């Protein structure tokens, strides 16, 4: 993450950040998940207007698979998220995280950042409380949980 750190808009003051992310997106070009198809999970809300901004700032699949990111994300997840979602995303009012295949990291990032209202449920917005780089680590942990499900499913298929 050295390069990302040096030019990342996350290092800018909050007021600049949106504009900076947009500009950085143009400069650095969109990073595409080459190893996963972009199948949006219906269960994840997409706040309008935010998707394009964040999409250009997403870390690479390699970064999201880094053990230190996953460990950091797990620690924060247990502190902040486990009360509602369980230690490994097994609780909450959503399907267990391990059952999510092909979960798009930027959708997870957006949901954590902007919260979600659906039916009687409401999840708070976290973008004012958790810095984006830490939200991405939580995403890495959630993807780590979901990836297990992917592998298990692949094994079942004989893959």
């Amino acid at each position, binding site marked *: 993450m050295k390069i990302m750190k040096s030019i990342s808009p996350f290092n800018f003051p909050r007021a600049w950040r949106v504009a900076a992310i947009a500009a950085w997106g143009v400069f650095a070009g969109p990073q595409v998940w080459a190893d996963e198809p972009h199948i949006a999970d219906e269960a994840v809300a997409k706040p309008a207007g935010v998707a394009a901004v964040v999409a250009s700032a997403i870390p690479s699949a390699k970064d999201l698979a880094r053990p230190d990111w996953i460990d950091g994300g797990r620690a924060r997840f247990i502190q902040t998220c486990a009360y509602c979602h369980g230690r490994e995303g097994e609780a909450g009012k959503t399907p267990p995280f391990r059952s999510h295949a092909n979960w798009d990291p930027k959708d997870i990032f957006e949901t954590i950042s902007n919260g979600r209202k659906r*039916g*009687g*449920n409401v999840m*708070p917005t976290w973008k004012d409380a958790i810095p984006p780089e830490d939200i991405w680590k939580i995403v890495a942990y959630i993807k780590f949980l979901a990836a297990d499900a992917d592998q298990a499913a692949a094994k079942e298929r004989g893959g």
Partner: protein
Amino acid sequence: MVLKKKRMTGVKGSLAAAMALLCSQLVGGAAVAAEPVDNPANWAEYHRDYRGWRYSPLQQITTSNVKKLKVAWIHQPGDITQGLQATPIILDGVVYYIGPNNRVFAVDGATGKEIWHYYTELDPAVSTILFNGYNRGVTVGNGKVFFGTLDGRLIALDQKTGKKVWDTKLTDIKKCNGCNFTSPPVLAGDVIIAGPTGGDLAQRGRLYALNAATGEKAWNFELIKDDPKSWPGTSGEHGGGGAWLPGQYDPKHDLFIVGTSNAAPDFDGTERQGDNLYSATVLAIEPKTGKLRWYHQEVPHDVWDYDSAYEFLFINKDKQDLLVHLNKGGYVSVIDNTSGKVVNTWKFAQNTNWVDKVDAKTGELIGRNEPEVGKTKIFCPSVLGARSWNAGAYSPKTKLWYTNAHEFCEQAAVGKQDPKTAGNGPYFGVADFGFVPPPGGKVSARLEAVDPLTGKLAWSVDYALPGLGGVLVTGGDLVFNGDSNGLIHAYNAANGKELWNFNAGSGIRGGIASYSAGGKQYIIAATGFGSLFPGFASGVFPAFKEAKGAAALIAFTLE
């Protein structure tokens, strides 16, 4: 369904005695209390009256005719965020209640026709709140309808018109996490008292008292005692200590009785060595001045999230004024209401391991089993208690307390957490946390009828999921309890036999009350999930995953 008949006291023919008892207990309060609490037609306070009984003396609906109970009307608040968690207030045939996102209504109790509504304009910053969307009720008195808001205000409406009389901002939710209000404020003579939600957040809790007529500030009571022996260093600055349930005003002793929430960080006591007063404490405060008359700390230096927030039963036994109080740690204390001294304790939860025992005569915790750094341990009950905040009901006829209960535990290890980065999230101080079944056992839930002074069980009914609604017991010897699948049950108060039920279509998190309008008795239920609990507990009760959101106030009467 399992029925256990271990003990039953005589219940027949005791109505006259019960009414005499009721009247005798109210005489002292009638002059001070703002509302005619002795009018059987009304449900004037959160628990009907200050005694926390949730007992309606009405007896038109009986064990013989309850089968003919039918829906009279339904009122929907038009927003289902976190369901309907309030207990309605009913005065002179008008139902007052609060729905999601601080929508307040006055509804005709005979027809369900809306008389007025008030939709609170909320600060957009409420999107950041952890304990969000819901509210447990309004308070009605002195010609006004009072409620606390998600964005840190107390508002008074005109009882007749629903127009705003005053609006006082008490906290800044952008700066103070967990400083929103989710429970009805309590009217104590001329002051109205409210406490904020956040025992689990990095904040410093206090009670706020306002002049009920004007909304001007009367006094604050600091729930984090300014004493380095209680809170060393800066630990008190983020020590938690909210008061998220309403408390009760006892006009007989002119006392505001309230239980406070846990100390924070919930599981990590290393930076807050000391008793951490006044967290996990029962407080008796003089409402005119805010002066503390007595206190009893149930869990000194709490490291398990065992709030003292739940309701108090006021019971007069052998001329002694007693308070019966369930702590989240699963023990019930019986406390002298004039001194704060413990006269008895009994174990309510079937599974407890955080102490060897609680001394019956002093309330002292003996043999503490505390969470540790670097080692995951199992604690029973969990942070969700042996029951949630939904109050039980007490009948002066049967002398039994009817309450929901559940059995499950948690695994936890202490982890350092920086209060500065905890933000609007929980400040638990954990490195490991999750709900688990009791060691060697299974998760379970029940409604039980028990002697509140001794813990002697009369009967119990097993439930598939923890019951999360407030219980009602009536002069017609009926116990009403709504379950988490949406069924509202009526039981014979004497033996637990089910006599009637109705499927409301979504779980019950609010209270069930009873009132009379136009000569007819009504049973009214706040229905619809709602609530964070089903999500928390869905790891150990997977059926909670199927909980559907809804919000509907349903009134029943005889055909």
